[in-house]
Protein backbone atom coordinates (compact mmCIF):
# COMPACT_ATOMS: atom_id res chain seq x y z
CA UNK A 1 0.00 0.00 0.00
CA UNK A 2 2.75 2.46 0.98
CA UNK A 3 6.20 1.66 -0.32
CA UNK A 4 9.33 3.50 0.63
CA UNK A 5 12.38 2.73 -1.48
CA UNK A 6 15.94 3.77 -0.75
CA UNK A 7 15.02 7.06 0.82
CA UNK A 8 17.88 9.27 2.00
CA UNK A 9 17.75 12.72 3.49
CA UNK A 10 20.47 14.79 5.06
CA UNK A 11 20.56 18.12 6.82
CA UNK A 12 23.94 19.64 6.34
CA UNK A 13 26.28 16.99 7.70
CA UNK A 14 23.60 14.98 9.49
CA UNK A 15 22.28 11.93 7.70
CA UNK A 16 18.73 11.90 9.01
CA UNK A 17 17.65 9.08 6.71
CA UNK A 18 20.06 6.70 5.12
CA UNK A 19 18.77 4.47 2.34
CA UNK A 20 15.59 3.45 4.13
CA UNK A 21 13.38 0.89 2.44
CA UNK A 22 10.15 -0.38 3.95
CA UNK A 23 6.54 -0.96 3.12
CA UNK A 24 3.19 -0.89 4.86
CA UNK A 25 0.41 -3.33 4.06
CA UNK A 26 -3.26 -2.65 3.89
CA UNK A 27 -4.93 -2.37 7.28
CA UNK A 28 -2.00 -3.02 9.56
CA UNK A 29 -0.61 -1.04 12.45
CA UNK A 30 3.14 -0.63 12.26
CA UNK A 31 5.18 0.84 15.08
CA UNK A 32 8.24 2.95 14.34
CA UNK A 33 10.79 3.14 17.11
CA UNK A 34 14.26 4.51 17.54
CA UNK A 35 16.23 6.75 19.85
CA UNK A 36 15.91 10.51 19.76
CA UNK A 37 17.19 11.98 16.55
CA UNK A 38 17.13 8.70 14.69
CA UNK A 39 15.09 10.16 11.83
CA UNK A 40 11.56 8.99 12.60
CA UNK A 41 9.86 12.37 12.26
CA UNK A 42 11.99 13.12 9.25
CA UNK A 43 10.63 9.99 7.60
CA UNK A 44 7.08 11.17 8.23
CA UNK A 45 7.91 14.60 6.84
CA UNK A 46 9.29 13.01 3.72
CA UNK A 47 6.24 10.78 3.28
CA UNK A 48 3.74 13.59 3.59
CA UNK A 49 5.67 15.92 1.31
CA UNK A 50 6.92 18.50 3.79
CA UNK A 51 10.49 17.51 2.98
CA UNK A 52 11.89 16.40 -0.33
CA UNK A 53 14.15 13.34 -0.07
CA UNK A 54 17.64 13.61 -1.50
CA UNK A 55 17.12 10.33 -3.20
CA UNK A 56 14.69 7.42 -3.32
CA UNK A 57 11.07 6.97 -4.19
CA UNK A 58 7.76 6.67 -2.42
CA UNK A 59 4.80 4.83 -3.89
CA UNK A 60 1.25 4.90 -2.68
CA UNK A 61 -1.02 2.22 -4.14
CA UNK A 62 1.47 1.79 -6.93
CA UNK A 63 1.57 5.47 -7.81
CA UNK A 64 4.70 7.51 -7.23
CA UNK A 65 4.11 10.39 -4.81
CA UNK A 66 7.72 11.36 -4.14
CA UNK A 67 7.60 14.91 -5.41
CA UNK A 68 3.95 15.77 -4.93
CA UNK A 69 2.97 18.74 -2.81
CA UNK A 70 1.74 18.07 0.75
CA UNK A 71 -1.79 19.08 -0.20
CA UNK A 72 -1.93 16.56 -3.03
CA UNK A 73 -0.51 13.78 -0.89
CA UNK A 74 -3.03 14.60 1.80
CA UNK A 75 -5.86 14.45 -0.68
CA UNK A 76 -4.72 11.02 -1.86
CA UNK A 77 -5.51 9.79 1.64
CA UNK A 78 -2.40 10.11 3.76
CA UNK A 79 -3.00 12.01 6.96
CA UNK A 80 -0.80 12.68 9.95
CA UNK A 81 -0.53 14.02 13.47
CA UNK A 82 2.41 16.02 14.72
CA UNK A 83 4.89 15.44 17.48
CA UNK A 84 3.62 17.59 20.35
CA UNK A 85 0.30 18.45 18.62
CA UNK A 86 -0.24 21.10 16.04
CA UNK A 87 -3.57 22.93 15.95
CA UNK A 88 -4.66 26.29 14.60
CA UNK A 89 -4.61 28.09 17.92
CA UNK A 90 -6.96 30.86 16.90
CA UNK A 91 -9.79 28.50 16.00
CA UNK A 92 -12.25 26.46 18.04
CA UNK A 93 -12.18 22.67 18.24
CA UNK A 94 -14.86 22.23 15.61
CA UNK A 95 -13.24 24.77 13.31
CA UNK A 96 -9.95 22.93 13.62
CA UNK A 97 -11.67 19.87 12.31
CA UNK A 98 -13.70 21.66 9.69
CA UNK A 99 -10.52 23.07 8.21
CA UNK A 100 -9.51 19.49 7.49
CA UNK A 101 -12.87 18.38 6.12
CA UNK A 102 -13.34 21.40 3.85
CA UNK A 103 -10.99 20.09 1.16
CA UNK A 104 -13.03 16.88 1.07
CA UNK A 105 -16.45 18.45 0.78
CA UNK A 106 -16.04 21.98 -0.57
CA UNK A 107 -19.20 22.98 1.21
CA UNK A 108 -19.21 24.47 4.63
CA UNK A 109 -22.37 22.70 5.73
CA UNK A 110 -21.17 19.28 4.70
CA UNK A 111 -17.77 19.93 6.18
CA UNK A 112 -19.34 20.88 9.48
CA UNK A 113 -21.64 17.87 9.42
CA UNK A 114 -18.71 15.58 8.88
CA UNK A 115 -16.73 17.29 11.63
CA UNK A 116 -19.65 16.95 14.04
CA UNK A 117 -20.01 13.23 13.37
CA UNK A 118 -16.36 12.76 14.19
CA UNK A 119 -16.39 14.68 17.46
CA UNK A 120 -19.55 12.87 18.48
CA UNK A 121 -17.87 9.58 17.78
CA UNK A 122 -14.89 10.56 19.90
CA UNK A 123 -17.14 11.96 22.61
CA UNK A 124 -15.70 15.45 22.58
CA UNK A 125 -18.81 17.26 21.33
CA UNK A 126 -18.98 19.20 24.60
CA UNK A 127 -15.78 21.06 23.85
CA UNK A 128 -16.72 21.66 20.22
CA UNK A 129 -17.01 25.42 20.51
CA UNK A 130 -14.03 25.89 22.81
CA UNK A 131 -10.94 27.64 21.52
CA UNK A 132 -8.14 25.10 21.34
CA UNK A 133 -5.87 27.28 23.45
CA UNK A 134 -8.09 26.40 26.40
CA UNK A 135 -7.67 22.64 26.07
CA UNK A 136 -5.63 20.21 28.14
CA UNK A 137 -2.76 18.31 26.65
CA UNK A 138 -4.86 15.18 26.38
CA UNK A 139 -7.78 17.00 24.76
CA UNK A 140 -5.45 18.50 22.21
CA UNK A 141 -4.24 15.04 21.29
CA UNK A 142 -7.79 13.83 20.87
CA UNK A 143 -8.66 16.85 18.72
CA UNK A 144 -5.67 16.15 16.54
CA UNK A 145 -6.75 12.54 16.20
CA UNK A 146 -10.27 13.67 15.42
CA UNK A 147 -8.93 15.95 12.73
CA UNK A 148 -6.98 13.08 11.24
CA UNK A 149 -9.98 10.79 11.31
CA UNK A 150 -12.16 13.44 9.71
CA UNK A 151 -9.89 13.43 6.66
CA UNK A 152 -11.04 9.84 6.02
CA UNK A 153 -7.47 8.73 5.42
CA UNK A 154 -6.27 5.42 4.05
CA UNK A 155 -2.94 5.81 5.78
CA UNK A 156 -2.49 7.54 9.12
CA UNK A 157 0.89 8.70 10.36
CA UNK A 158 0.91 9.22 14.13
CA UNK A 159 3.90 10.92 15.71
CA UNK A 160 4.35 10.26 19.45
CA UNK A 161 0.86 10.46 20.81
CA UNK A 162 1.25 8.76 24.19
CA UNK A 163 3.91 10.97 25.74
CA UNK A 164 2.77 12.75 28.86
CA UNK A 165 -0.56 10.96 29.20
CA UNK A 166 -1.97 8.98 32.13
CA UNK A 167 -2.64 5.24 31.93
CA UNK A 168 -6.31 5.82 31.39
CA UNK A 169 -5.76 8.40 28.70
CA UNK A 170 -3.32 6.10 26.95
CA UNK A 171 -5.95 3.40 27.10
CA UNK A 172 -8.54 5.66 25.49
CA UNK A 173 -6.25 6.62 22.69
CA UNK A 174 -5.28 3.04 22.08
CA UNK A 175 -8.95 2.18 21.72
CA UNK A 176 -9.42 4.91 19.16
CA UNK A 177 -6.48 3.62 17.19
CA UNK A 178 -7.80 0.10 17.20
CA UNK A 179 -11.16 1.44 16.13
CA UNK A 180 -9.51 3.29 13.26
CA UNK A 181 -7.97 0.09 12.07
CA UNK A 182 -11.11 -1.98 12.41
CA UNK A 183 -13.85 0.43 11.37
CA UNK A 184 -12.03 2.72 8.98
CA UNK A 185 -9.79 0.05 7.52
CA UNK A 186 -6.93 2.45 8.01
CA UNK A 187 -3.28 1.59 7.81
CA UNK A 188 -1.47 3.15 10.75
CA UNK A 189 2.20 4.03 10.94
CA UNK A 190 3.01 5.05 14.48
CA UNK A 191 6.07 6.58 16.06
CA UNK A 192 6.20 5.98 19.79
CA UNK A 193 8.77 5.95 22.56
CA UNK A 194 6.43 4.24 25.00
CA UNK A 195 6.88 0.79 23.57
CA UNK A 196 4.70 -0.80 26.25
CA UNK A 197 1.71 1.04 24.82
CA UNK A 198 2.53 -0.29 21.39
CA UNK A 199 2.68 -3.88 22.46
CA UNK A 200 0.20 -4.09 25.31
CA UNK A 201 -2.43 -1.50 24.50
CA UNK A 202 -2.62 -1.35 20.74
CA UNK A 203 -0.99 -4.63 19.86
CA UNK A 204 0.79 -3.47 16.74
CA UNK A 205 1.25 -5.93 13.91
CA UNK A 206 4.86 -5.06 13.22
CA UNK A 207 7.61 -2.84 14.52
CA UNK A 208 10.33 -1.12 12.55
CA UNK A 209 13.39 0.31 14.28
CA UNK A 210 15.58 3.13 13.07
CA UNK A 211 18.93 4.25 14.33
CA UNK A 212 20.91 7.17 12.93
CA UNK A 213 18.70 7.14 9.87
CA UNK A 214 19.26 3.46 9.16
CA UNK A 215 16.69 0.71 9.41
CA UNK A 216 18.15 -1.69 11.96
CA UNK A 217 15.33 -4.12 12.62
CA UNK A 218 11.92 -5.03 11.34
CA UNK A 219 9.43 -7.76 12.22
CA UNK A 220 7.07 -9.07 14.89
CA UNK A 221 7.05 -6.85 17.97
CA UNK A 222 8.55 -9.42 20.31
CA UNK A 223 11.35 -10.12 17.84
CA UNK A 224 12.26 -6.52 17.33
CA UNK A 225 12.34 -5.52 20.96
CA UNK A 226 14.55 -8.41 21.82
CA UNK A 227 16.84 -7.70 18.90
CA UNK A 228 20.37 -7.06 20.09
CA UNK A 229 20.90 -3.99 17.93
CA UNK A 230 17.69 -2.45 19.10
CA UNK A 231 18.46 -2.96 22.75
CA UNK A 232 21.88 -1.48 22.25
CA UNK A 233 20.51 1.52 20.44
CA UNK A 234 17.91 2.05 23.11
CA UNK A 235 20.07 1.31 26.11
CA UNK A 236 19.00 3.41 29.02
CA UNK A 237 16.16 4.99 27.14
CA UNK A 238 13.35 2.48 27.03
CA UNK A 239 10.93 1.54 29.71
CA UNK A 240 9.84 -1.74 28.16
Amino acid at each position, binding site marked *: MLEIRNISKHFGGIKALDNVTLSLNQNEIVGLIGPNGSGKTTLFNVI*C*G*LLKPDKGHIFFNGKEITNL*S*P*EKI*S*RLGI*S*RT*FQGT*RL*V*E*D*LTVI*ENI*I*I*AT*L*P*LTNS*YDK*AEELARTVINKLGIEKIGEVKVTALTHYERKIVELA*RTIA*CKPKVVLIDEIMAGLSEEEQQNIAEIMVWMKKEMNATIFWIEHIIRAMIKLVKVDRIIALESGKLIAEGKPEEVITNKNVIEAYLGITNV
Partner: protein
Amino acid sequence: MEITNIFFIIFLSLQIGLIYGLIALGFNLLYSSTRIINITYGDFITLSGYITFWLYSLYNISPFLSLGISSFFLILFTLPFFYILEKFVLSSKNILYIEIWGVIITFGFSIFLQGTMSYLWSAQSRSYAYLDNVIDFFGVSFLLNKFLTTIVAALLIFLLYFLLFKTNIGIMLRGVIQDPELASNLGLNMRKIFLIAFIISSFIASISGVLLSMSFEINPFMGSIYLILAFVIAVVGGIGNPLGSLISGILFGFVDVIISYTIGPSLKFFIIYSLLLLILIYRPWGLMGRGVRYA
Protein backbone atom coordinates in the same frame (compact mmCIF):
# COMPACT_ATOMS: atom_id res chain seq x y z
CA MET B 1 -14.85 70.61 26.10
CA GLU B 2 -18.33 70.73 24.69
CA ILE B 3 -20.18 67.51 24.17
CA THR B 4 -20.57 68.18 20.45
CA ASN B 5 -16.82 68.50 20.22
CA ILE B 6 -16.45 65.11 21.81
CA PHE B 7 -18.83 63.69 19.26
CA PHE B 8 -16.86 65.34 16.55
CA ILE B 9 -13.57 63.97 17.85
CA ILE B 10 -14.97 60.46 18.05
CA PHE B 11 -16.39 60.68 14.59
CA LEU B 12 -13.21 62.10 13.16
CA SER B 13 -11.03 59.50 14.85
CA LEU B 14 -13.25 56.76 13.50
CA GLN B 15 -13.23 58.23 10.06
CA ILE B 16 -9.45 58.22 9.91
CA GLY B 17 -9.01 55.10 12.03
CA LEU B 18 -11.38 52.84 10.12
CA ILE B 19 -9.71 53.56 6.81
CA TYR B 20 -6.24 53.13 8.28
CA GLY B 21 -7.37 49.88 9.87
CA LEU B 22 -8.80 48.65 6.59
CA ILE B 23 -5.68 49.46 4.66
CA ALA B 24 -3.51 47.73 7.23
CA LEU B 25 -5.83 44.73 7.26
CA GLY B 26 -5.56 44.20 3.52
CA PHE B 27 -1.80 44.42 3.67
CA ASN B 28 -1.59 42.17 6.70
CA LEU B 29 -3.84 39.44 5.28
CA LEU B 30 -1.79 39.15 2.15
CA TYR B 31 1.54 39.20 3.92
CA SER B 32 0.65 36.79 6.65
CA SER B 33 -0.91 34.24 4.34
CA THR B 34 1.48 34.37 1.40
CA ARG B 35 4.56 36.02 2.96
CA ILE B 36 4.60 38.50 0.13
CA ILE B 37 5.29 42.05 1.26
CA ASN B 38 3.29 43.64 -1.49
CA ILE B 39 4.93 46.97 -2.30
CA THR B 40 2.36 47.46 -5.06
CA TYR B 41 -0.42 47.54 -2.46
CA GLY B 42 -0.27 51.33 -2.09
CA ASP B 43 -0.39 51.78 -5.85
CA PHE B 44 -3.54 49.68 -6.05
CA ILE B 45 -5.09 52.25 -3.73
CA THR B 46 -3.88 55.01 -6.05
CA LEU B 47 -5.16 53.23 -9.13
CA SER B 48 -8.56 52.83 -7.59
CA GLY B 49 -8.57 56.53 -6.70
CA TYR B 50 -7.84 57.36 -10.33
CA ILE B 51 -10.53 55.05 -11.65
CA THR B 52 -13.01 56.78 -9.39
CA PHE B 53 -11.75 60.21 -10.36
CA TRP B 54 -11.98 59.57 -14.09
CA LEU B 55 -15.34 57.87 -13.97
CA TYR B 56 -16.71 60.76 -11.99
CA SER B 57 -15.16 63.62 -13.90
CA LEU B 58 -15.64 62.16 -17.39
CA TYR B 59 -18.91 60.26 -17.11
CA ASN B 60 -20.31 61.63 -13.90
CA ILE B 61 -20.44 58.14 -12.40
CA SER B 62 -20.97 58.28 -8.66
CA PRO B 63 -18.00 57.18 -6.55
CA PHE B 64 -20.36 54.81 -4.78
CA LEU B 65 -20.84 52.97 -8.06
CA SER B 66 -17.10 53.08 -8.47
CA LEU B 67 -16.79 51.00 -5.34
CA GLY B 68 -17.96 48.10 -7.49
CA ILE B 69 -16.42 49.10 -10.80
CA SER B 70 -13.03 49.82 -9.35
CA SER B 71 -13.00 46.61 -7.33
CA PHE B 72 -13.86 44.71 -10.46
CA PHE B 73 -10.99 46.20 -12.41
CA LEU B 74 -8.51 45.82 -9.61
CA ILE B 75 -9.40 42.21 -9.08
CA LEU B 76 -9.06 41.62 -12.79
CA PHE B 77 -5.68 43.27 -12.62
CA THR B 78 -4.75 41.12 -9.65
CA LEU B 79 -5.10 37.87 -11.57
CA PRO B 80 -2.04 38.15 -13.82
CA PHE B 81 -0.17 39.78 -10.95
CA PHE B 82 -0.95 36.77 -8.80
CA TYR B 83 -0.07 34.38 -11.57
CA ILE B 84 3.39 35.87 -11.99
CA LEU B 85 4.09 35.90 -8.28
CA GLU B 86 2.82 32.37 -7.90
CA LYS B 87 4.97 31.12 -10.71
CA PHE B 88 8.16 32.79 -9.63
CA VAL B 89 7.89 33.35 -5.92
CA LEU B 90 5.17 31.39 -4.18
CA SER B 91 6.29 28.08 -5.66
CA SER B 92 9.24 28.19 -3.29
CA LYS B 93 8.87 26.86 0.22
CA ASN B 94 11.55 29.05 1.63
CA ILE B 95 10.00 31.95 3.51
CA LEU B 96 13.07 34.14 3.23
CA TYR B 97 13.12 33.56 -0.51
CA ILE B 98 9.44 34.48 -0.82
CA GLU B 99 9.90 37.60 1.27
CA ILE B 100 12.95 38.86 -0.58
CA TRP B 101 11.82 38.07 -4.11
CA GLY B 102 8.30 39.18 -3.28
CA VAL B 103 9.63 42.60 -2.31
CA ILE B 104 11.88 42.83 -5.35
CA ILE B 105 9.20 41.87 -7.84
CA THR B 106 6.38 43.91 -6.33
CA PHE B 107 8.75 46.85 -5.98
CA GLY B 108 9.40 46.60 -9.69
CA PHE B 109 5.67 46.51 -10.34
CA SER B 110 5.20 49.50 -8.09
CA ILE B 111 7.71 51.59 -10.02
CA PHE B 112 6.16 50.44 -13.26
CA LEU B 113 2.63 51.33 -12.10
CA GLN B 114 3.63 54.70 -10.70
CA GLY B 115 5.52 55.50 -13.88
CA THR B 116 2.65 54.41 -16.08
CA MET B 117 0.10 56.38 -14.10
CA SER B 118 2.18 59.53 -14.16
CA TYR B 119 2.84 59.04 -17.86
CA LEU B 120 -0.82 58.54 -18.69
CA TRP B 121 -2.34 61.06 -16.34
CA SER B 122 0.63 63.25 -15.37
CA ALA B 123 1.89 63.72 -11.86
CA GLN B 124 -0.42 66.64 -11.25
CA SER B 125 -2.64 66.20 -8.19
CA ARG B 126 -6.32 65.70 -8.88
CA SER B 127 -9.47 65.84 -6.93
CA TYR B 128 -13.20 66.07 -7.34
CA ALA B 129 -16.15 67.45 -5.43
CA TYR B 130 -18.81 64.93 -4.57
CA LEU B 131 -21.51 65.25 -1.92
CA ASP B 132 -19.41 67.97 -0.39
CA ASN B 133 -22.21 69.61 1.55
CA VAL B 134 -22.35 69.90 5.30
CA ILE B 135 -24.97 67.93 7.19
CA ASP B 136 -25.99 68.14 10.81
CA PHE B 137 -26.03 65.04 12.89
CA PHE B 138 -26.73 65.16 16.63
CA GLY B 139 -25.82 68.82 16.62
CA VAL B 140 -22.46 68.19 15.01
CA SER B 141 -21.80 69.15 11.43
CA PHE B 142 -20.05 66.80 9.04
CA LEU B 143 -19.24 66.80 5.39
CA LEU B 144 -21.63 64.36 3.81
CA ASN B 145 -18.92 62.56 1.82
CA LYS B 146 -16.83 62.01 4.92
CA PHE B 147 -19.83 60.73 6.78
CA LEU B 148 -20.71 58.24 4.05
CA THR B 149 -17.08 57.23 3.72
CA THR B 150 -17.05 56.29 7.35
CA ILE B 151 -20.22 54.28 6.99
CA VAL B 152 -18.91 52.40 3.96
CA ALA B 153 -15.66 51.65 5.79
CA ALA B 154 -17.59 50.35 8.79
CA LEU B 155 -19.80 48.19 6.57
CA LEU B 156 -16.79 46.77 4.81
CA ILE B 157 -15.26 45.92 8.15
CA PHE B 158 -18.38 44.03 9.16
CA LEU B 159 -18.34 42.23 5.85
CA LEU B 160 -14.71 41.27 6.32
CA TYR B 161 -15.37 40.21 9.88
CA PHE B 162 -18.10 37.93 8.67
CA LEU B 163 -15.91 36.61 5.92
CA LEU B 164 -12.96 35.93 8.16
CA PHE B 165 -14.74 34.59 11.20
CA LYS B 166 -17.95 33.05 9.96
CA THR B 167 -17.20 31.42 6.65
CA ASN B 168 -15.14 28.50 5.44
CA ILE B 169 -12.95 30.86 3.44
CA GLY B 170 -12.19 32.65 6.68
CA ILE B 171 -11.36 29.47 8.53
CA MET B 172 -9.07 28.30 5.76
CA LEU B 173 -7.44 31.68 5.44
CA ARG B 174 -6.80 31.93 9.15
CA GLY B 175 -5.50 28.38 9.13
CA VAL B 176 -3.07 29.20 6.37
CA ILE B 177 -2.02 32.41 8.10
CA GLN B 178 -1.27 30.71 11.37
CA ASP B 179 0.33 27.54 10.14
CA PRO B 180 0.80 27.18 6.40
CA GLU B 181 2.68 23.91 6.80
CA LEU B 182 -0.15 22.35 8.73
CA ALA B 183 -2.70 23.72 6.30
CA SER B 184 -0.96 22.14 3.35
CA ASN B 185 -0.70 18.90 5.29
CA LEU B 186 -4.44 18.96 5.79
CA GLY B 187 -4.93 19.07 2.05
CA LEU B 188 -6.01 22.71 1.74
CA ASN B 189 -5.65 24.02 -1.77
CA MET B 190 -2.93 26.55 -1.06
CA ARG B 191 -3.04 28.09 -4.50
CA LYS B 192 -6.73 28.81 -4.16
CA ILE B 193 -6.25 30.32 -0.73
CA PHE B 194 -3.37 32.49 -1.88
CA LEU B 195 -5.52 33.69 -4.73
CA ILE B 196 -8.34 34.47 -2.33
CA ALA B 197 -5.91 36.42 -0.13
CA PHE B 198 -4.77 38.41 -3.15
CA ILE B 199 -8.32 39.14 -4.18
CA ILE B 200 -9.42 40.23 -0.71
CA SER B 201 -6.37 42.41 -0.36
CA SER B 202 -6.98 44.07 -3.73
CA PHE B 203 -10.63 44.47 -2.91
CA ILE B 204 -9.76 46.30 0.29
CA ALA B 205 -7.21 48.44 -1.54
CA SER B 206 -9.75 49.40 -4.15
CA ILE B 207 -12.46 50.32 -1.66
CA SER B 208 -9.97 52.34 0.37
CA GLY B 209 -8.81 54.08 -2.78
CA VAL B 210 -12.35 55.12 -3.66
CA LEU B 211 -13.05 56.36 -0.14
CA LEU B 212 -9.78 58.25 0.20
CA SER B 213 -10.25 59.95 -3.15
CA MET B 214 -13.50 61.44 -1.88
CA SER B 215 -11.69 63.43 0.80
CA PHE B 216 -8.10 63.82 -0.29
CA GLU B 217 -6.34 64.72 -3.51
CA ILE B 218 -4.73 61.95 -5.50
CA ASN B 219 -1.45 61.72 -7.39
CA PRO B 220 0.45 58.81 -8.94
CA PHE B 221 2.98 58.63 -6.12
CA MET B 222 0.71 58.78 -3.11
CA GLY B 223 0.62 54.98 -2.80
CA SER B 224 3.98 54.92 -1.05
CA ILE B 225 2.60 56.92 1.87
CA TYR B 226 -0.29 54.53 2.37
CA LEU B 227 1.99 51.54 2.02
CA ILE B 228 4.17 52.72 4.89
CA LEU B 229 1.10 53.48 6.97
CA ALA B 230 -0.32 50.02 6.29
CA PHE B 231 2.96 48.41 7.19
CA VAL B 232 3.39 50.31 10.45
CA ILE B 233 -0.17 49.74 11.60
CA ALA B 234 -0.09 46.06 10.67
CA VAL B 235 3.11 45.54 12.62
CA VAL B 236 1.74 47.38 15.65
CA GLY B 237 -1.46 45.37 15.55
CA GLY B 238 0.39 42.11 15.13
CA ILE B 239 1.32 40.41 11.87
CA GLY B 240 -1.25 37.78 11.01
CA ASN B 241 -3.82 39.23 13.36
CA PRO B 242 -6.68 40.78 11.38
CA LEU B 243 -8.47 42.17 14.42
CA GLY B 244 -5.16 43.59 15.58
CA SER B 245 -4.85 45.62 12.39
CA LEU B 246 -8.32 47.06 12.74
CA ILE B 247 -7.90 47.95 16.37
CA SER B 248 -4.47 49.41 15.88
CA GLY B 249 -5.80 51.44 12.93
CA ILE B 250 -8.62 52.85 15.01
CA LEU B 251 -6.23 53.51 17.87
CA PHE B 252 -3.96 55.31 15.46
CA GLY B 253 -6.93 57.44 14.38
CA PHE B 254 -7.79 58.35 17.97
CA VAL B 255 -4.23 59.14 19.00
CA ASP B 256 -3.79 61.19 15.86
CA VAL B 257 -6.91 63.28 16.44
CA ILE B 258 -6.60 63.60 20.19
CA ILE B 259 -3.02 64.79 20.02
CA SER B 260 -4.05 67.35 17.44
CA TYR B 261 -6.70 68.61 19.81
CA THR B 262 -4.78 68.72 23.03
CA ILE B 263 -1.08 69.20 22.46
CA GLY B 264 -1.50 70.51 18.95
CA PRO B 265 -0.55 68.86 15.71
CA SER B 266 3.04 70.09 15.58
CA LEU B 267 4.26 67.33 17.84
CA LYS B 268 1.88 64.74 16.49
CA PHE B 269 4.25 62.64 14.45
CA PHE B 270 6.91 62.79 17.11
CA ILE B 271 4.48 61.45 19.70
CA ILE B 272 2.95 58.82 17.44
CA TYR B 273 6.29 57.45 16.40
CA SER B 274 7.61 57.50 19.95
CA LEU B 275 4.59 55.48 21.03
CA LEU B 276 5.20 53.12 18.15
CA LEU B 277 8.79 52.65 19.18
CA LEU B 278 7.73 51.93 22.75
CA ILE B 279 5.17 49.39 21.60
CA LEU B 280 7.67 47.65 19.40
CA ILE B 281 10.29 47.57 22.15
CA TYR B 282 7.97 46.18 24.79
CA ARG B 283 5.70 44.15 22.58
CA PRO B 284 7.65 43.26 19.47
CA TRP B 285 4.93 40.83 18.47
CA GLY B 286 2.48 43.73 18.28
CA LEU B 287 -0.25 45.04 20.54
CA MET B 288 -2.64 42.22 19.89
CA GLY B 289 -0.17 39.43 19.44
CA ARG B 290 1.09 37.78 16.37
CA GLY B 291 -1.20 35.41 14.56
CA VAL B 292 1.43 33.49 12.70
CA ARG B 293 3.24 30.43 13.92
CA TYR B 294 6.66 31.18 12.55
CA ALA B 295 7.33 34.83 12.05
